[in-house]
């Protein structure tokens, strides 16, 4: 039994190595991810706490000070109606990030759920995958327009204009972007299901929901995390497109996408109007991608500790 006695390391039995401690230790070694976390935290802090320091109302019109270049009073300048850009970027950031994260979570949960169910239960596979194909084949933009036309007014009257449209947009983006996740997850589950450790779990008598939660889900985490990080970017951009079409939030309600689209006509006059919202979107998406990358590595014990 030389193979066992050779590498007995003095590792005290009672000392518990916690999973999340290991994950955090590995995560810290991923430089990109750490920078990503720093940038993302910075953006969140600015967007949430900024309006308390820079107290100009983003919708306040100051026509005499329109199209200003950056000054001390208006660090990002003003737009063609004299609204302060920094205040708008911060207010828009709250909405855009909330939409991005919520819509991503919705599409992720939906996609992962459908993928796992379709992959694990053979009877449901055909039906669910044809449903996925159906959603993929739908022309998304006309569908969005129809949904928004149909439900905008009723939701507005129930939840108020802003919350109503928020729910609608998150829902619409969520249910039109889960298909990729579902397909990838299904493929992974199909391959995993035949692995011996799943058969071993069955031979132990592990119940099916436990097999899914304990053996299948942790092993499909990587593709799920990757589609999550891409999903945030996708949701922010789709929301921008909707706002551009006049179907998103009301026109006096800033979001990053709307600021970008409003600013594009004044690009030569005041380039700051597209640079700042554009930079905010890019940095958010990039930092989230790096965080996802780092998380994926940190959650895989085979990579951890290298």
């Amino acid at each position, binding site marked *: *039994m030389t*193979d*066992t006695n050779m590498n*007995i*390391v003095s*590792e*005290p*039995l009672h000392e*518990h*190595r916690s*999973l999340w401690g290991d994950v955090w230790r590995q995560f810290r070694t991923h430089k990109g991810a750490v920078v990503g976390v720093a940038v993302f935290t910075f953006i969140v802090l600015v967007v949430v706490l900024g309006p308390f320091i820079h107290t100009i109302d983003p919708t306040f019109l100051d026509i005499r000070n329109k199209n200003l270049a950056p000054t001390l009073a208006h660090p990002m300048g003003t737009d063609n109606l004299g609204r302060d850009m920094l205040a708008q970027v911060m207010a828009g950031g709250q909405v855009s990030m909330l939409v991005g994260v919520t819509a991503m979570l919705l599409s992720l949960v939906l996609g992962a759920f459908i993928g796992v169910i379709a992959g694990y239960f053979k009877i449901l596979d055909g039906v669910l995958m044809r449903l996925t194909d159906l959603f993929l084949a739908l022309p998304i933009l006309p569908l969005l327009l129809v949904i928004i036309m149909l439900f905008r007014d009723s939701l507005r009257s129930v939840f108020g204009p802003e919350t109503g449209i928020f729910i609608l947009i998150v829902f619409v983006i969520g249910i039109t972007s889960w298909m990729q996740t579902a397909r990838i997850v299904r493929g992974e589950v199909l391959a995993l299901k035949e*692995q*011996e*450790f799943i*058969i*071993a*779990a*069955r*031979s*132990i*008598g*592990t*119940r099916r929901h*436990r097999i899914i939660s*304990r*053996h299948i889900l*942790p*092993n499909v985490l990587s593709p799920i995390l990757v589609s999550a990080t891409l999903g945030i970017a996708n949701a922010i951009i789709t929301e921008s497109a909707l706002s551009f079409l006049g179907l998103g939030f009301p026109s006096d309600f800033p979001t990053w996408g709307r600021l970008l689209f409003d600013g594009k006509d004044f690009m030569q006059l005041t380039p700051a109007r597209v640079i700042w919202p554009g930079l905010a979107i890019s940095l958010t998406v990039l930092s989230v991608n790096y965080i996802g990358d780092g998380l994926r590595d940190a*959650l*895989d*014990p*085979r990579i*951890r500790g290298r």
Partner: protein
Amino acid sequence: MADIAQMDDQEIDPNVLVRVDDLHMHFPIYKGILRRQVGAVKAVDGLTFDIRRGETLGLVGESGCGKSTAGRAILRLYDPTSGHVHINGKDIAELSRTELRKIRPQMQMIFQDPQASLNPRMTVGSIVSEPLDEHGIVSGKEKKARVGELLDAVGLNPSFVNRYPHEFSGGQRQRIGIARALALNPEFIVCDEPIAALDVSIQAQVVNLLEDLQSKLGLTYLFISHDLSMVRHIADRVAVMYLGKIMELTSVDKLFKTPKHPYTKALLSAVPVPDPKIEAKRERIILQGDVPNPANPPKGCVFSTRCPIAEDKCFKDAPKWRDLGGDQYVACHLAG
């Protein structure tokens, strides 16, 4: 073993732990747009044998003859097409899901590939304690102690509980798999080629460990292997499988000294002898052709297409299980 069918109604011999009775496992083949069933791969086609308490039954045969499928069907990891498997008098082929779950602790399995049979994202501790959690036997401190005890029993340092499978060598991983199989105090363990993926030097360690555990815990093994010399070492009786059927079943000594079935003779002639003088003179029986397709097995005796002594009746009638006396059974018209 023609007497088994009659014995079914009578009291079951208390010495028999596992009774496999005419077990069939066919995998359907679907073809065409309408996915109509056009045939079936007869991976296991009528197995009948007993495993006695405390013995090791070796199940040997070449690749693709249905050994692993048989092992999995016996534990009902596959739902058998037909037939019965009695373990401790209960027909597990008929049990419902919940009833089956209750008796899972009695029967466990050790897998071929120690890398694939351990979840890479679970620590050794959680892998070994999973069966304990599932059946809610112990919890808290007791569970920790039990996991330590199990790791100790298979020759692993109990301080390894927080490590992941990829941090171990192949032999150590197989020990983790064995510890998991032992966690529920099973009576019967199917060892599905547990040493095939291991280095030769590690094979002996794992086999010795299995033997030690058997004598300590009174385990009963179904030892599936294609390695005849290893089977000779560990098994008490051996069943030789070919194309989903058992060709010969007898004690190890008889099988190696007086093999009766032509297929057994051919298999044994392929085992090298560790003596160059004898090895040079050894006569090998080389079988012609390939194993037939299990989706379309030959008529009559399945071995007839490659049998060196086949006669007319071998191509027409399937041979019956015959008792040659002295606990030696064979499925051949001509043996005896």
